[in-house]
């Protein structure tokens, strides 16, 4: 079951698979949209979704504000001893993670299935 929310520049599509919450941002994660993105992810974690996959397949680009919201989400999920996995990045998004020094901070998978599997592990 999918649900969607969002505003100009970013839409968030949410679903569940094997007890793992999946968030699929569609558009750009920048200073205009990072607030919405970060708030929704934090809300999901606080409401009990401690195993979370963020699917980057439809992300056009991510700026410094977007990276900050990911770092905050990562810290929050650590507090709940959960697991955050990122998946399906384009070459360009993967490059941005690398130049920003974020590749080693997050577990990144090539496919959504791999992401769900990794996120569901304790």
């Amino acid at each position, binding site marked *: 079951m999918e649900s969607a929310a969002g505003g100009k520049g970013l839409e968030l599509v949410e679903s569940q698979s094997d007890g793992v919450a999946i968030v699929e941002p569609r558009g*750009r994660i*920048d200073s205009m949209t990072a607030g919405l993105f970060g708030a929704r992810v934090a809300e999901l974690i606080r409401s009990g979704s401690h195993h979370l996959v963020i699917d980057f397949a439809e992300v056009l680009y991510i700026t410094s504000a977007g990276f900050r919201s990911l770092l905050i989400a990562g810290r929050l999920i650590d507090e709940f001893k959960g697991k955050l996995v990122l998946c399906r990045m384009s070459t*360009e998004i993967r490059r941005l993670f690398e130049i920003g020094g974020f590749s080693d901070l997050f577990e990144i998978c090539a496919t959504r299935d791999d992401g769900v599997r990794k996120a569901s592990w304790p």
Partner: protein
Amino acid sequence: MNPANLLYGVSDRPPASVCLMNAAQHVMILAPTLVYPIVILRAGGASDAAVVNGVSLSFVALGIGTSLQSLRHRHIGSGYLLTATPTAAYLPAGIAAVTLGGSAMLFGMTLLAGLFEIMLAQVIRRMRAFFPTEISGLCVLLIGTLLGVLGIRLLLGLDGSGVVRSTALGRDFALGVFALAVMVGLNVWAVGRWRMYCAIIGMSAGYLAAAALGAVDAHSRTTLRLAPIMDLPSSPNSLPSFSIDLVLPFMVGALACCLRGMGDITNCQKVNDRDWVRPDLTSIRNGIVADGVSTIAASFLGTLGSSTYSSSVGMSTAAGVTARVIGFWTGGLLVVLSLFPVVAALMVSIPNPVMGAAILFTGCFVMINGLQIITYRLLDARRTFIVGLALTLGLSRDIFPTFYGGLPHAIQPFVGSSLIIGLLTALALNAVFRIGVRSRVTFMFDPGVDSPDVIRSFLEQQGAKWAARRDVIERAIFGTAQAAESIAENSRLEGPIQIEVSFDEFNLDLKLSYRGDEFLIEDHRPTNEEIRDSDDGIRRLAGFLIQRNADRVRSSRRGDKAVLECHYQH
């Protein structure tokens, strides 16, 4: 860096056994093109023995040409495994030459053509703007389709106008499909040596099947039986003669060889470099020089001029072996084989369907490389028309041969093949469409909700006009959007931001000018805690990302404006 599909890359040194077997494969797939010197020799009234001698002499010329092509000398050799082959580009002119003045005329005019090709090589670098990457890709694609059409023609026993000439169509078709199936099957499902030697195995299997079915023609069998096992080939002793009437046809042939060489060498560069971005014009120039010298060698040996052999690039790719040292092995093997007329006779006797299968097989790899080179760049309407119209016109040569054959005699040299028509069309359109494309453009925008879309749209459109690399334009889009976001939030911006973009084939430069505080570039990444918790964490990360995203960044103040400059190597 070597692409993953190569077992041995261009600079590797495979074991001698691998070199020898791969050299044998490269020699074997030359078989279909040996028909060109044979046609010339027969047009000059040569006997069967003289034809076999002529083919042996062609081996010597091709051996010299292939070895020169593998060199990485400052002035000669592309530095790639790329065999030389007798070329159809000189066929009509060559027949006219032997008819008009015998072997002396062929000698003189082929010599001139070789010299002209060397001259053409010298102007390639200065004419760089007229040979953009997508035209190189088109050239490779046209060569691939040319091979495909030739392969189908031989496999089905069709003549130039598509009429069936084979007297045993079903048998020949089955033979061709069998040889093709062996090559494709080994290439797709086999590993190691079976994959590496798929072409030679497929051709040998096809030949044996042809012999068993009686498909090797009687004339070839007789020539094979009468050919001496070992004999020194004798070269003609005539002095060169020249004809002013034949200058243009031979010059057009040389131009066609030059263009084909550009496509083949570009293909070699791409096949051998995982990070390939553009044709290396020095390697192309030196490769064309090697091709010209090879044609000069052919003229002294009384045979037809040569060009680079596209099938050899396809076969190297299929085998996963592109080591240039194999070029020297192939050259050496060709010279040694020239001492064995029986080998020349054996190669001439390979049935057409088997030859067709080999050419079709190698053509597939060439075609795909051409498509990849074309789509590597952003293409706007101008470039879409250049590629689309040139490709369609080129292909029409093979679809409507009667129409082109009926055109006036004076323009026949320019419509001789799909490659010539396609490339001349592309080069002419490219020259026309260069009018009105500025290398420097400026636009203004107010940062806001829509600015990322405005920036993307502007840079993508401009990138397509310039046929810029997709990956570089993506970097520029991110850099501009990230900078605009950070300036709007942290630099006390007053008014719009002006963006100036300039481009040439090697550089893309962006200059953002605005009224506000100077942009702060960060050399060191802020810590995760600083990014998360400090007030200027996002700004500092933006400064760091912009610095890492570009190849060079500079922030300064000019008059009342702050200026941020980002340079991207293209």
